[in-house]
């Protein structure tokens, strides 16, 4: 049998043994042989950073993306139908236009009644498309199908987002604003370290306490709840706290509404809940609602400091103050969250368990995306483009100065359209989210570097808050017409662009001129 030249002995060993797979010393190198490049010595990442850019706290270099927190993300839409064939907290469903389409809704998703469910999704699509045709007259939907209307809506928002981003991308504050979520991630890490939790628990606490709160107040409340959970486990309830808890209960109307909260204070034997008494300690309270009552009452009755800080994306702090009508400047006080949102935060702190965390975050797309953006800021670089859309983010896309109760904001994020039970997709949020994703893709192509959707959102978010302060959002309650010149201009320009009287590239500049320019964020020290 012919020997295999690759395995046959190659001759006498230079070490004297008879043969072996060893190339003798002095063997000439074959001409034209492939030479592998010499590998570099292993780097110590602590001593030799891969990117030579200056390192800023909470800031990632532009071209370096981290997979941190990918495994801690939660689904950003949660269907709640009893007919589902799967646990929506285990599936990683994402909010986007695809979730609004009946053709995306397969029969494998429900145990029974598929035709009815699919029709429900199709009806919701038609309803949302018609809502856009009726209420967004400056979005040109003439002659378009339902699917075409959704596409045009995304494109309209996309154009405005790209325009505003390009206007402010070179401002001195924009680089920090682009990494806002890394700053939030770092703060979640600091809270986790201080209070002995995981980072995802800290991020979950922040997100669950975010509804109706500015970031700075939100962060302060997270700190207070985590402090109580960590450091007051053996504290007893004081008479002052009991009195305060009774005030919470008394704010409810006599009857079943009051009973729902009173059972946590006075006990509910059938549910195994003991009453809260002066002997009760935090650790012995059975239900997160009881612990939430404790945390809030302790803070309101005994906390030495109820003020809070303004926190920049890179972690610099300064005291939050307000100017009174008298001209005096005083420290602002952190107003508490509703007891049930505090209970959600405590549920997250009690158990580091992702399905528990996912449930505690609730159904709102914004809260769920906010959590994901904090816990895994670069997830979009790994195919998970979470995007936090709030009132300001909608104002960027529509380029209208709208407050939280404006009809279009209400439609955009909340309850307009149906079928959430099967798809978990609420209103026009999926379209706003897709507009940011598309804007990020466009800007990445234009600027030649990868830009993530959450970067686009946080930069334009700071810009729009400056462009549209609260006072320009006033509308006439009867007609819905804007009362401030900036609002009136934005509306007129939108119509002008729609009907071809104003070139889109000029509209934004005219609006910025009317508003007197875009000022830096309050945290920026220029």
């Amino acid at each position, binding site marked *: 049998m012919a020997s295999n030249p690759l395995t046959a002995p190659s001759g006498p060993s230079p070490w004297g043994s008879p043969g072996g797979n060893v190339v003798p010393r002095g063997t000439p190198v074959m001409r034209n042989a492939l030479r592998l490049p010499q590998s570099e010595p292993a780097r110590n990442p602590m001593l030799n950073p891969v990117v030579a850019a200056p390192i800023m706290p909470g800031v990632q270099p532009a071209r370096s993306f981290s997979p941190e927190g990918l495994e801690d993300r939660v689904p950003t839409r*949660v269907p*709640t*139908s*009893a*007919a589902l064939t799967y646990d929506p907290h285990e599936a990683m469903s994402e909010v986007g236009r695809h979730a609004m389409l009946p053709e995306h809704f397969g029969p494998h998703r*429900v*145990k*029974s*009644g598929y035709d*009815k*469910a699919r029709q*429900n999704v199709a009806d919701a699509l038609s309803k949302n498309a018609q809502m856009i045709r009726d209420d967004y007259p400056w979005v040109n939907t003439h002659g378009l199908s339902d699917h075409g209307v959704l596409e045009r809506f995304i494109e309209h928002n996309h154009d405005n987002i790209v325009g505003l981003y390009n206007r402010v991308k070179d401002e001195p504050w924009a680089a920090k604003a682009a990494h806002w979520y890394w700053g939030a991630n770092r703060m979640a890490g600091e809270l986790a370290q201080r209070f002995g939790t995981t980072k995802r628990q800290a991020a979950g606490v922040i997100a669950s306490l975010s*509804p*109706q709160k500015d970031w700075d107040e939100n962060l302060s409340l997270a700190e207070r709840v985590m402090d109580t959970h960590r450091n007051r486990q053996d504290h007893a309830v004081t008479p002052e706290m009991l009195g305060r808890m009774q*005030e*919470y209960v008394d*704010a*409810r*109307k006599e009857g*079943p*509404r009051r*009973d*729902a*909260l009173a*059972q*946590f204070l006075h006990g*509910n034997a059938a*549910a195994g809940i003991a009453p809260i008494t002066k002997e009760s300690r935090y650790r012995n309270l059975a239900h*997160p*609602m009881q612990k*939430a009552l404790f945390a809030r009452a302790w803070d309101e009755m005994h906390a030495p400091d109820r003020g809070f800080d303004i926190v920049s994306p890179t972690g610099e702090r300064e005291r939050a103050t307000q100017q009174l009508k008298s001209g005096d400047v005083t420290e602002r006080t952190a107003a508490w969250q*509703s*007891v*049930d949102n505090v*209970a*959600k935060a405590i*549920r997250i702190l009690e158990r580091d368990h992702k399905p528990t965390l996912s*449930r*505690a*975050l*609730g*159904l*709102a797309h*914004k809260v769920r995306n906010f959590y994901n953006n904090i816990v895994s800021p670069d997830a979009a670089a790994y195919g998970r483009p979470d995007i936090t859309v709030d*009132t300001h983010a909608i104002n960027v896309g529509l380029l209208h100065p709208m*407050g*939280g*109760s*404006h009809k279009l*904001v*209400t439609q955009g*994020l*909340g*309850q307009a359209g*149906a079928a*959430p*039970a099967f798809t978990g997709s*609420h209103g026009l949020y999926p379209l706003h989210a897709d507009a940011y994703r598309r804007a990020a893709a466009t800007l990445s192509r234009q600027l030649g570097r990868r830009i993530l959707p959450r970067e686009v959102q946080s930069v334009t978010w700071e810009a729009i808050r400056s462009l549209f302060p609260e006072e320009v959002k006033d509308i006439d309650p009867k007609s819905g017409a804007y009362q401030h010149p900036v609002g009136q201009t934005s509306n007129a320009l939108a119509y002008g662009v729609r009907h071809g009287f104003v070139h889109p590239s000029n509209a934004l500049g005219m609006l910025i001129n009317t508003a007197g320019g875009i000022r830096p964020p309050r945290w920026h020290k220029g």
Partner: protein
Amino acid sequence: MDEHQPNWKALAEMDPTLEAMLMAGTPLTREDYIGTKYGEPGTEDYPAEWTREHEEALPYPFQKA
């Protein structure tokens, strides 16, 4: 069970107010939910202005269509 009705159990897992209402036998209506969560108008926690965020925070069966 009608599988196309709201799954109250699944919703209550995500919402302590709803869980409390189910435990206390509070009627599952929009008004009762708001009254349980925020108290009565004019009290401390009741929103001075009802915004989109408040609406969005309601369980979807209670949101205005």
